[in-house]
């Protein structure tokens, strides 16, 4: 699956997972969704790095965030200019050490990068699901991943690691499969989204739904609500950054276009140009319907139900948990990360809360951050 064998790396040095390729797992059984509805079968696209041991218990599952996918480390071709989205933390000798652990990451159910989602063809009708794809939850994503891990021969997860929506999945894992998960690392996440976070998702969905290109969810690949999707992405992207980091990166710098005096409502400021680029590149890689389903799953996620007390939900947990909040994250702010650990500790569980003073906002967990690597690495080693 990858060409990085553990023996090639000397202790204390880090290497790269190198060339990797994805695989498809096809589950031929019907999948029943938490809120009703079913699909006759599903596919999850995934990648693995490292080797599964004979006991099948050295696996680490990486869960991706809203716009992520299964390609979290390595490169697909030597011509690739970018590696997987979490390459800085995954690899031989890195905190998620592929020399020790068998690392698995799959594109979530409902996704648009190879896994079954709204744009996949429904074998029963011969045409894409579109908006007839069942309402999806974080729990559904987790249950689909469990099928994949069973297929791979993973008997027990050494750890589940994820940030943001991936953090929600990690939390759901330890609740739904308490005996299966030894450790959980949840970064920049929440037990339930605030009204503000739901509001941002609602505006993003609104931009998509009101784009005539959405057409009730029925559109040809590449011809969908591109304007709506890019606006949703541009707005959401602001919530992933911080005021300070935007100020430092862009300030009031102007574009060349502005200097040439050509613009009326064009891209005058660098920050506009940056966001437009974000919006534009997103429509080439992401499906608008998946965006609707995933953001809905985020909004519906609520570990306070059914009793209203988080510690009741956590009563079943057996995993050791590390939660990391980021001071500058205003989407899932430190308080919401702390609340998770408060509830776990009140419930008598083993949990740690650490807060990193990084200025990049919600996306801090994705950037180069030695202090985060030490925490995650130390936790996985301990």
């Amino acid at each position: 699956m990858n060409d990085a064998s553990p023996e090639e790396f000397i202790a204390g040095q880090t290497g790269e997972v190198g060339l990797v390729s994805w695989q498809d797992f096809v589950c031929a059984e019907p999948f029943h969704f938490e809120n009703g509805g079913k699909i006759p079968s599903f596919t999850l696209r995934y990648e693995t790095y490292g080797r599964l041991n004979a006991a099948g218990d050295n696996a680490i599952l990486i869960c991706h965030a809203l716009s992520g996918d299964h390609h979290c480390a390595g490169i697909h071709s030597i011509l690739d200019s970018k590696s997987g989205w979490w390459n800085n933390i995954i690899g031989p000798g890195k905190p998620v050490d592929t020399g020790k652990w068998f690392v698995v990451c799959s594109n979530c159910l409902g996704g648009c990068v190879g896994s079954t989602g709204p744009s996949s063809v429904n074998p029963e009708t011969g045409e894409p699901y579109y908006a007839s794809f069942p309402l999806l939850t974080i729990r559904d994503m987790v249950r689909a991943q469990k099928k994949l891990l069973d297929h791979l021969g993973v008997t027990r997860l050494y750890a589940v690691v994820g940030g943001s929506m991936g953090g929600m999945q990690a939390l759901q894992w330890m609740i739904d499969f308490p005996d299966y998960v030894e450790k959980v690392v949840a970064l920049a996440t929440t037990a339930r989204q605030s009204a503000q976070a739901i509001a941002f998702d609602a505006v993003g969905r609104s931009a998509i739904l009101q784009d005539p290109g959405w057409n009730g969810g029925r559109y040809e690949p590449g011809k969908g609500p591109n304007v709506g999707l890019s606006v949703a992405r541009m707005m959401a992207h602001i919530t992933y950054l911080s005021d300070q980091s935007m100020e430092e990166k862009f300030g009031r710098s102007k574009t060349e276009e502005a200097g040439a005096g050509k613009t009326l409502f064009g891209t005058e400021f660098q920050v506009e140009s940056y966001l437009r680029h974000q919006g534009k590149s997103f429509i080439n890689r992401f499906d608008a319907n998946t965006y609707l389903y995933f953001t809905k799953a985020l909004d519906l996620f609520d570990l306070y139900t059914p009793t209203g007390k988080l510690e009741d939900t956590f009563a079943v947990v057996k995993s050791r948990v590390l939660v990391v909040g980021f001071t500058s994250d205003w989407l899932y702010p430190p308080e919401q990360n702390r609340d998770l650990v408060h509830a776990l500790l009140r419930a008598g569980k083993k949990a740690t809360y650490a807060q990193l003073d990084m200025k990049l906002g919600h996306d801090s967990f994705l950037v180069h951050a030695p202090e985060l690597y030490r925490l995650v690495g130390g936790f996985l080693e301990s």
Partner: protein
Amino acid sequence: MTKIHAIKRETDLQILGDWIEPGSRVLDLGCGRGVLLEKLRQKKDVQAIGVDIDAEKIEACVRRGLSVYQGDAASFLSLFDESHFDWVILSRTVQELEDPAKVIRGALRAGRKLAIGFENHGYWRNRLADLASGRASHSLTGDTPWPESRPQNPVSVPEFEEFCARESIGILRRVWLAGDWKSPVKRLAPLRAAYAMYAVSKAK
């Protein structure tokens, strides 16, 4: 420096290892790198939680496999039901707290018992050092010069006992140690004790 730290740690461990019942729920406020909790866990199989504000110390605790919380002690205590913990530990932390009374009250609410250890500011060597040089005394901690020191709010044996009396806090046990942090002091503790450790609880 390391030797002094080792002696201090060993002292705390000896006393607390004697006091704390096996399997207790223990909360260490200002847990540092988690050495004490790790030892208590090994020795007494306690369910240990540490609290510290320093990110680097949290990291060290994580490496030790401890449950640890990065944040403020008083607000952390307020999250727990009454008597959630069997023991709350304040080991050489109290002099650095912004509002020691608030933390002690919180600890006595969230915990059944509080173990509190501090260097006695009234220890004769400290008094002498004050007189002789006019410098703030550090006694055994004298390894950090003041520009690098954290703010200190030193406490003495009589001040602590007066506080307990005023707050109706019951003193269950007390250990006073001489300058070597080993030999017990029986008399004239306000003057002769370098280190004091108390077990206290809310008076019934």
